[in-house]
């Protein structure tokens, strides 16, 4: 079994960084001191990712307030809207408001990436909102249909991918919880498949992962299998492996085996068992393991503690996770 591991969303901020961001709000520290701490912490996250043998590094995306903000704040046509609950969690994002046709200023997203990633792009994993999730969460006041927005966001995200590939990035992970939370049907499902086509074209030979979470992945499997991506991931805290249809799947299979909704550590033998069962049912070319949902639902300490199950499972099942 070929096993790869890595983060599937932003990491939590360690306590000193939380304190520093609060201190900045209260005028007790300077932006320069906070920036220095961000950089130091990103290096620590990268070092952790390397120690754990992850396939690619992220730096934790610690600066992003939420995954949509780099776009809502930088792409023309958008405004930053009200606080909105993120799925069934006690966390919130600011809803992007689409006021007119969105336009992507070149370089604006790259400027929001962790600086440490820009130094080693070939090792970096870029996090992006998937076009369907992005279109689903925004307040669409543009006058365009929701399907047209999915198409349009797919094209713009493809432009980002092309630009980032030009900088040397080789791995892109699209966060798409809405594909399982509210699976699209009919023309909207077709729009999702079409939305990923320009992304596929922009990728060249780079890898693309679509990561779903927050609900049972099985109802969305037929659509996920149609997406032109290297792999798609499902959240095993929500999806029963025994119910996965038997098939030989073309794309890689992502399995969310670390549950960020509990501080309880995963049992290595149990994880290995469930991964083996999923592999037997789907026969994917590659298994990607990671947190089932963004790790920042946990505080830093339990989050990093729980990640240690990934290399252990990778070691037990595969080739050490660095094939």
């Amino acid at each position, binding site marked *: 079994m070929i096993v790869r591991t890595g983060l599937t969303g932003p990491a*939590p901020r360690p306590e000193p960084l939380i304190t520093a961001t609060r201190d900045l709000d209260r005028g007790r520290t300077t932006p320069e001191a906070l920036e220095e701490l961000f950089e130091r912490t990103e290096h620590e996250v990268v070092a952790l990712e390397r120690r754990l043998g992850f396939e690619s590094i992220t730096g934790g995306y610690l600066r992003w307030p939420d995954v949509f903000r780099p776009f809502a704040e930088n792409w023309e046509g958008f405004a930053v809207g009200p606080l909105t609950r993120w799925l069934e969690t006690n966390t919130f994002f600011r809803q992007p408001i689409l006021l007119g046709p969105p336009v992507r200023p070149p370089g604006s997203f790259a400027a929001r990436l962790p600086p440490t990633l820009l130094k080693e792009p070939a090792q970096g994993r870029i996090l992006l909102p998937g076009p369907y999730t992005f279109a689903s969460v925004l307040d669409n006041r543009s006058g365009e249909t929701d399907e047209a927005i999915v198409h349009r966001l797919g094209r713009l995200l493809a432009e980002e991918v092309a630009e980032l590939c030009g900088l040397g990035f080789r791995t892109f992970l699209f966060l798409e919880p809405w594909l399982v939370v509210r699976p699209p049907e009919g023309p909207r499902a077709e729009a999702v498949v079409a939305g990923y086509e320009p992304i596929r074209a922009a990728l060249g030979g780079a890898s693309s992962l679509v990561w779903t979470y927050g609900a049972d992945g099985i109802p969305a499997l037929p659509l996920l299998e149609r997406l032109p991506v290297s792999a798609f991931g499902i959240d095993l*805290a929500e999806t029963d492996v025994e119910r996965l249809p038997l098939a030989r799947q073309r794309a890689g299979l992502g399995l969310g085996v670390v549950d960020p909704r509990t501080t309880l550590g995963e049992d290595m033998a149990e994880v290995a068992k469930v991964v083996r069962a999923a592999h037997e049912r789907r026969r994917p070319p590659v298994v990607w393991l990671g947190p089932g949902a963004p790790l920042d639902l946990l*505080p830093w300490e339990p989050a990093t503690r729980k990640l240690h199950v990934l290399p252990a499972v990778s070691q037990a099942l595969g080739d050490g996770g660095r094939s």
Partner: protein
Amino acid sequence: MRSPLFPTQEIGSLAKPRWQLMGQRTEPLDDAAKADFRAWDARTHFAEEMPAERAALLEGRPREVGPERVRDLGAMFAIRFLEDAGLDRVYDGEARRIEMYEYPIRQMRGFRFQGHVRSFDHKYYLKAAVVDELRLERPYHVEEFDFVRLHAKAVPKIPLTGPYTLADWSYNEYYLARQKGWKGRGARRAAQREFVVDLARRAIRPTIHALIERGCRVIQIDEPAAGTHPDEAELVVEGFNAATEGFDAEFSMHICYSNYRDLLPALLEAKQCRQWAWEFANRDTDGHDGYAVLQALAEYGDTREVGLGVVDVHRDSVESPEVVRARIARAVRYLGDPDRIWVNPDCGLRTRSLPVARAKLDAVVRGAALARADFSSPRR
């Protein structure tokens, strides 16, 4: 018909005045804090029963008062603030509480705080995991209630965070670890059920018992997490029933910012719940009738009281009494019975400044009076 028609109440928290925050830190009050203290005291006479503390704070001697007596004064301020607005049921604006999660959890054994989790932007909250058998150290909010009972002229209604919300806002280790095999959806659901019921029986229930022993008659169970997982509405109810069964008190359930239809009919099995205290005004905008959801209660034949949220606690713009009257009238149309309606803000007013909070409470009271006149007239 009960008298008066459309009685009024608050829902929970108020912003803490600047002088209270400074006083708790034993900092001498600055000029703005002193002016604020004097202005509200002139209006509500909240410090009349604590003249020594008033003098010490205003004369720059906060250490003579000490944090605990400053909190007493803060509670007194909130009681008089709410009474002066004319509410029929009051509490202390949660003047002694930091928030609604951490304090109750700290009164229990079996939890371990894990660190901060982001709520949004740079805002975080401290989150605990249940890691061992859950035990209540001692019933909480009891001294707080004693103070309100001693000083309030209006009927006190205490808010208590409900078992479902305490469980939902915690990590579940102890109960999940007892589940065999892969910790998938079924295991998590079973573990959460055990957790909620234990919280209800071992922590909330003894606290309610102690409060009732002290003379508490009206208890609001806050379950803001109920709307987060609509498919767990039955668990919300199971926790509520386990906490309240057999007690002789008036219980209400406060839920906000949720699709209430998604929680029905499961919620209707909350046996001891006499009143639904829900938010409505926040969604009553732009031609959208925020009160239409009350039809669902009528459809299910539910005849309980409704604590009707008539002012939005997330906006500074103050609703007019006429808007409040119109909202009450719409609710009467949907429910078919004016006697079932209590009038209140959507939720706690802590995010609003005290002048705005007071203006909104004035609108609640004056709007209820207008509606009372409408429905008491012979044309009704």
